């Protein structure tokens, strides 16, 4: 499902002494089936932006096209519910939303709110649990007895059980240990690749943004500064640095190594493997040159 953002402006608490401009004339497109990362430092408007995609916030000005729906300041609240069914949202620390007595009830909660029949909801719960790699045996357990990583996966299963067409992730790995982090990222990469799910991820991790996404949106002070393929966004070193954003680790390493070795390694390279290839190429060329 394509999401198109046209001249979106959002003002918090308008006409009060606390009025503040959170988004200002944002234009962007999330192509159907794409994996899009949104980067920017804290307070740049990333979270405010994505909360418009499933109608948790309404534009002050401008509009958002989600599939064939249009959301503007005059959209009625009851129409937003249909939108939320299509677009799932995983908040930061989603385990904080768990409340039911059992894991099963909690996962079924969303589908039941959208009038999915109970049997179907239960079927979805099992399926979602499998997607997040948790055993069916925990269905009857209280979500509050689980470990932190498991709780997070149950909460994610609760969103997946809505069977959304697109999913929004607001820093989905915050606070997890490295293994938990890998598990969650693998899960969403898989969903994106296998089910073609449109995925929108807000992240502070430049490596994740570079490695996982088709498109990167750069936010700053409520404005969308750039939207492009990661190779192009991360070539704009000066812009990113001025925003207090880093380059991916591999690129930083290449620059450091290049300085010492007298090489201009400035191409966008995101993985250690690709960085090693770049370095290896220069070694081989030199060898070849020696031989001749």
């Amino acid at each position, binding site marked *: 499902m394509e999401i198109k953002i046209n001249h979106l402006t959002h003002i918090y*608490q308008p006409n009060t002494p*606390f009025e*503040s401009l959170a988004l200002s004339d944002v234009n962007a497109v999330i192509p159907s089936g794409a994996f899009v990362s949104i980067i920017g430092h804290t307070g740049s408007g990333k979270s405010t932006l994505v*909360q418009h995609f*499933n109608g*948790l916030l309404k534009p002050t000005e401008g509009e958002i096209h989600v599939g064939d729906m249009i959301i503007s300041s005059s959209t009625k*609240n*009851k129409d937003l*519910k249909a939108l*939320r*069914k299509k677009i*799932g*949202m995983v*908040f930061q620390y*989603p385990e*904080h*939303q*768990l*409340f039911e007595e059992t894991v099963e009830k909690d996962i079924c*909660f*969303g589908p039941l*709110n*959208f009038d999915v029949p109970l049997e179907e909801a239960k079927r979805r719960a099992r399926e979602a649990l499998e997607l997040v790699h948790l055993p069916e045996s925990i269905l009857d357990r209280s979500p*509050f007895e689980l470990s932190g990583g498991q709780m997070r996966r149950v909460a994610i299963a*609760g*969103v997946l059980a*809505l069977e959304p067409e697109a999913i929004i992730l607001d820093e989905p790995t915050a606070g997890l240990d490295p293994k938990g982090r890998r598990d969650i990222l693998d899960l969403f990469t898989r969903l994106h690749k296998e089910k073609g799910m449109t995925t929108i991820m807000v992240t502070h991790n430049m490596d994740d943004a570079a490695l996982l996404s088709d498109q990167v949106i750069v936010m700053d002070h409520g404005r969308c500064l750039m939207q492009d393929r990661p190779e192009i966004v991360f070539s704009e070193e000066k812009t990113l640095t001025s925003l207090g954003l880093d380059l991916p680790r591999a690129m930083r390493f290449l620059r450091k190594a290049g300085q010492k070795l007298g090489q201009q390694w400035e191409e966008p390279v995101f993985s250690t493997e690709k960085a090693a290839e770049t370095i290896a190429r220069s070694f081989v060329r030199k060898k070849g040159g020696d031989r001749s």
Partner: protein
Amino acid sequence: MKLIIGQFVPGDSIIHRMDPRAKLITVFIFVFIVFLANNPWTYGFLLAFTVLGILVSKVPFSFIYRGLKPVLFIIIFTFILNALFTRQGDVLISAGWFQLTTAGLKQAIFISIRLLAIIVVTTLLTLTTSPIAITDGLETLLKPLKKWRFPVHEFALMMSIALRFIPTLMEETEKIMKAQMARGVDFSSGSLVKRGKAIIPLLVPLFVGAFKRAEDLAMAMEARGYRGDVGRTKFRLLKWHGRDTGLLSVLAVLTAALILMRG
């Protein structure tokens, strides 16, 4: 998210800078001496004191009005009640059962001034004093109660921690509401029963979160050496200035005037 705790409006007027103890004592005594007034002169004094307070505090009238709004109804109601049911003096207007007498009108005006004065003066206290300063003032003023085992320190600490966590919990509430809305909860429409039910997915996580916070906080406090009131010193220092003595003197003069001039 931005919000004001209580109604405190930061400022730099002489009233803002007064010791919270002086202001608390004043409001406390004022509430009593209001009842001494019983003729135009004495009510005039009360009004004068109140208006002077507002002017000196430099708090815009609009803020005072906002504080007054929720209780305005009560004032009007009391006014009407007194106007209708006091049947002494000359009749001013009469229409069937309805009768407005001079005494009734006078009574209504006086009672309204009383209420108004009490409410405005207390509002002025909360508008010009930060909640934490009020807590400090109360803690110091209530200290003598410790002799009777009243947990003054714990009470004050509880108040200040509550103040500290109000914004955090508000933010959390908003977050959980949004998370549940994303899962299809509708907080704003439907029957009363339906809406009541919608509160559960909000309240449970909120309580679970609050308990977790309380646990964490208790541990952090212990790690930082908190062991109750024993051997504790205090950083916040209340200083009594000339202006505070001044305030109490004005209050004493007002009290004396009320006693002397009442009929």
